[in-house]
């Protein structure tokens, strides 16, 4: 792999950039791999990457029915934060956040992680108490957050209207090292690094069946033929119910559409990421200048990936109330992503009833920020059979009634 750097760019400029090699190879599948990961989104590629990097397992194929990074990795609002309330969530999201800090250097690919800070606004007394609780929890979890007063909120977010009038801003939970990253680059950076380790990323290759023998997985059937493996990881947001059924078990998830939109680009006016949960809206400004806005989810099963109008109507109203200048911006485009939601809205990183078959699913609306942590934990689980980060996210927890519910302290799982 040729290293990327300013010098490399300058060198290539002299020959009109004709010398750049492919970012990742485009191989045909082999007959057999030690590990097959289904799904070349951020989570799947990160799993493969850490299998190689942390455990030296590189005879790995990542199978993708479409194009790598083409699912939710490429259609989310790119927020990264770890100010979660419950210990298991805080642990994995903070692991992810800390890996994001060094990801560009680690992958030699600028993923543009920008720790610009994330504020979650408190606009009711209930939220104030909830975020103070989170701040206390975070302190013990090793997650750096703080409760900030309205004046500080205004300093950080000059375009905010503190006075409401309907829901005055009473303060906020501030995570200075939260932020955003360039979503596509995360997938591309991992893909390039995986490919460089000798792993095969096989695009346009749909899994049509999962083969097992004696309760143990032995391979998959694909549109590019049968491929054997020792271990199988299913990392397919929006398709996990479908795939798990092929493997012969069911998952406690439902797939719904999550709405998002962007405005036309404007000059920088908001450096931090702001989430306003009372009025259901969150917004950040991308490096291109677009205001990136997240909305809510549909309440029904939907696989269309299409935007719907009434959800964004609610979101936009809320944002206009909170940031009056938004009223005179324009929506450039809206879309939907299919997210898998579990019974407690927290993910599943788990062994399954099929031996050597593992699943990583159910990230709901919070998947992007978790990518490196999720991949790290999944790789550890697949390589060693145990991962402290994944421990509490077992699919067995629903049976025990042991939920990881993040909605409890006025928090949301975005």
């Amino acid at each position, binding site marked *: 792999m040729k290293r990327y750097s*300013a010098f490399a760019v300058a060198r290539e400029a002299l020959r009109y950039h004709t010398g750049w090699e492919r970012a990742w190879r485009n191989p045909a599948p082999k007959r057999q791999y030690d590990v097959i990961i289904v799904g070349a989104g951020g989570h799947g590629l990160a799993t493969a990457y850490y299998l190689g990097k942390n455990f030296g397992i590189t005879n790995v194929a990542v199978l993708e029915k479409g194009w790598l990074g083409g699912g939710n990795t490429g259609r989310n609002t790119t927020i990264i934060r770890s100010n979660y309330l419950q210990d298991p969530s805080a642990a994995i999201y903070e692991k992810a956040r800390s890996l994001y800090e060094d990801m560009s250097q680690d992958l030699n690919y*600028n993923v543009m992680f920008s720790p610009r800070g994330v504020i979650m606004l408190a606009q009711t007394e209930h939220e104030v108490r909830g975020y103070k609780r989170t701040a206390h929890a975070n302190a013990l979890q090793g997650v750096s957050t703080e409760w900030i007063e309205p004046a500080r909120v205004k300093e950080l977010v000059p375009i905010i209207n503190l006075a409401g009038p309907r829901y005055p801003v009473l303060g906020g939970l501030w995570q200075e090292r939260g932020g955003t990253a360039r979503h596509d680059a995360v997938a591309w950076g991992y893909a390039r690094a995986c490919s460089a380790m000798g792993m095969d990323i096989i695009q346009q290759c749909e899994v049509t069946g999962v083969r097992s023998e004696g309760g143990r997985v032995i391979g998959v059937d694909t549109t590019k033929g049968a491929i054997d493996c020792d271990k199988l990881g299913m990392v397919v947001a929006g398709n996990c119910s479908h795939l798990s059924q092929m493997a012969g078990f069911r998952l406690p998830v439902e797939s719904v559409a999550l709405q998002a939109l962007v405005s036309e680009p404007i*000059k920088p006016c908001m450096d931090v990421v702001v989430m306003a949960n009372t009025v259901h809206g969150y917004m950040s400004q991308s490096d291109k200048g677009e205001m990136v806005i997240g909305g809510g989810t549909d309440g029904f099963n939907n696989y269309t990936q299409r935007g719907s109008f009434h959800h964004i109507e609610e979101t936009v109203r809320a944002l206009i109330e909170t940031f009056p200048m938004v009223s005179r911006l324009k929506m450039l485009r809206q879309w939907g992503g299919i997210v898998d939601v579990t019974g407690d809205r927290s993910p599943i990183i788990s062994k399954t009833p099929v031996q050597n078959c593992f699943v990583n699913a159910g990230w709901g609306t919070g998947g992007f920020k978790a990518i490196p942590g999720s991949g790290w934990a999944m790789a550890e689980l697949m390589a060693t059979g145990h991962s402290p980060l994944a421990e509490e996210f077992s699919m067995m927890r629903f049976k025990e009634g042991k939920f990881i519910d993040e909605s409890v302290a006025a928090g949301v799982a975005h």
Partner: protein
Amino acid sequence: MSTRLATQGRLIDRSKPIEFTFNGTRMTGYAGDTLASALLANDQLLVGRSFKYHRPRGLVASGAEEPNALVGLGTGDRFEPNQRATTTELFSGLSAQSQNHWPSLEFDVGVVNNKLARFLPAGFYYKMFIHPKPFWKHVYEPIIRKSAGLGQAPDRELKDADTYEHFYYFCDVLVIGGGVAGLQAALVAAKSGAKVLVLEQNAHWGGRAPVDGGTIDGDYPEAWVEQTLAELSAMENVTLRNRCMGAGVYDHGYALGYERLTDHAPGQGGPRHRMWRIRAKQIVTATGAIERPLSFAGNDVPGVMLAAAMRDYVVNWGATPGKRVLVATNNDDAYRTALTLHAAGIEVVRVLDTRETGGGALMEEVRALGIRVECGRGIAKVKDGKCVTRVAICAQNGQGGAQEEVEADAVAMSGGWSPVVHLWSHCGGKLTWDDAQAHFRPDPARPPLGADGAGFVVAAGSANGPLGLGAVLSDAAEAGAKAAAAAGFKAEAKPAAGVAQDEAPMQPVWLMPARAEIDLRMKAWLDFQNDVKVSDVQLAAREGFESVEHTKRYTTLGMATDQGKLSNINGLAVLADSLGSEIPQVGTTTFRPPYHPISMGAIGGEARGEIFQPLRKTPMHDWHDANGADWEPVGHWRRPYAFVRAGESVKEAVSREILNTRQNVGLLDASTLGKLIVKGPDAGRFLDMMYTNMMSTLKVGKCRYGLMCSENGFLSDDGVVARIDEETWLCHTTTGGADRIHAHMEEWLQTEWWDWKVYVANVTEQLAQVAVVGPKARMLLEKLNAEAGGGMDVSKEALPFMEWKDGEIGGFKCRAYRISFSGELSYEIAVPASQGQAFWDALMAAGAEFGVMPYGTECLHVMRAEKGFIMIGDETDGTVIPQDLGLNWAISKKKEDFIGKRAQQRSHMVDPDRWQLVGLETLDGAVLPDGAYAVGSGVNANGQKNTIGRVTSTYHSPTLGKGIAMGLVKHGPKRMGEVIEFPGTDGTVYKAKIVDPVFYDKEGEKQNV
């Protein structure tokens, strides 16, 4: 230079000059001008700077597809960035500023990026700025952010001066596009009797046809348009809306119309935009086609314009970008531009036709005028600069070796036409590749599917592929008939007869010249706004970004505010070529709504200011507001947090209210608490399922505190239940619970136990409810009764604790409950809402001698905490079961089942290690911080400190003069007296003793007097 012509300009009224300013310079246009045509007429060819390289940019197009001419429009609370000059109608006093430059449009420092362009190819930022790590956030990114973005942000302290609204509309056939195709389709559909709505995004009807010429039914297209409009207007079943864009097509035939009501006359009053939320049985997309640019070096220099756009400017507005124009084309249509220019007295210096054999009849017409036409030729390069000066000509089939240079001040280019398929595609309509026209057009076999599984969109006219006038009209007539038929009407597809010159086949040209060298490809623009060039797409393909989505994202092709209207097909073609693949195999990116950016204000609609959200008010709301209420939002209600007096802080007010209520008497407006009547022969059995307690055994006249859980076992609501008669119960819920619990009950009744005879009615708002609380509460009520000459006996004997009674107090018909959330003697009295304020007034007046004061929610919270009563939302958070809160006494052991019972038997729910409710008291009387966690020893497997409990509510108790708290602690009830540690976020470690959660009047004597 660009200028106004003495002739032409069918849309402008030269008798009505209009003054406006551009970058502070006063200019004059005419009524009917767009800002774009007026700028052109004022020799303002340079209109902006590009996104990445800050290259000078001029007008390329004449409509919504324009990528360059974006301006900041208006000032102050009506300023808006990124307004398209081509879709902005000129009005008197218009003030526009160009964007994305510093210090000025003419001299922009950012153009340094242009000099470095070679070092800044597609995706350069992924490969650079990696080291040193902190530099990304602190150095590189701020520079990139500043240089990116387009328009200025609106003023952060100003609120939009305009208003917006929505409008729901239902029709049989929605026709999007008011060109000849749209009008033809509408006419056919309307004649069938269908209810038809026609939307046209521009101010004028007829689309391109009046500019393009030909005849319809033997007359000028303009005449046919006028006549058809008159015919449609006269039909009762037709609604025509201009300045109203079809913005999006959504599932089940839902469409958005974006009507711009006052953009052409700001401040005239009324809403600025109206969002039409349309439910149509069928939608006809007659959205026309967009001309494609040609990809040659320097195709972005101001003065290079789409050929049809140049024709538009001349014919519609009498404006031209130059006096010496070179035309480059791969099809016949551009000859119309040559003819138009010639007729307007503009010199056509050359027509370059890429086709070796040239065009058809139109070409001959041009030649006959003495204009030089060269076939098999193209542009090698337009000389860089702020305007066109020289154009190098070469063989189309070569590498760009220039054979000749000609002087010209403008270039008209045409690369063929692409149907506007956006609206067809929004909701899943599929496309097919048309080899002859080299474009994607709607595949009629794969339309978007509606609720019934059948297609609900029909494309019409050039939006469907046909480009000739005759073919457009007959296609549109068929589309109108098809849509009407699908909507249930009988229509006849009788088209008007359109006649235009026959055209020779076009030749796909994706690069000019075909084998252009790299230095030319690096100057051949695909996406003008985002600065994506042919070489960028080729680089992406080389690096393995083979999917069209990858290439789009890697190069940002088509991601600018024009959403790739001009660039997408050209980019796809270059990508396909680079991959050695065919265009249809490469496919398109997804088309997302809206077709063209729409204002956030319009999306939000009327919901701003006082009607942003409903504000629910109790009958006493206005009294509270006038008497110092410090409001707290609770759902859509607002409840007084405290009643603050002059010179008093909120905290002081709370203390005063607590002490007064404990010593004298206080009034709480409890009207927001939910009140549900549950009645029927099975009501008792039903409530036994709803509540953890046994409610069927409650005696008539009695009250019982009840708990409700979710099926998951978690505590979800609480409240007092009163049995009214044999078959009737009244259930109180929390403020937030009224609608939620009502819905919860209906859900179970309708979907699980539909054979049970139970009716539920929500009477929350029928009643105003006042809690009269404190040792002097009874005296107050008795005084009221005395004044009224009698009333309900409120003595302990007549109305004991946990009973209720109907009667009159102070002459008010009421129902009184002896229940208490404060531990004091307390009556909750419900009167009809229409009497609420009067009753409140009477209580205040009669209570004066007893020191009565109103109190708010915080006082309520503190008093209940002093008593160790739990609060839904404080002690519970959706993860807490009643057993955690020591509420086992409220969970019936006799019942076989209730909602949540099975869940509470799961292993984690019966785990003895669950945290349980205790009281907490700091050693020094200080107040524990809200939400603090108690730490145990060591860390968990993830390195997090182990916790053993948390604070759920914490207050300063003025009654006890110290901090009190409740919390959930592991093995808590067994650890009474132990001291545990709560680290604060400020570094302080708070020590607290585990105590009984009942801090005040442990025996409950006060409430039972």
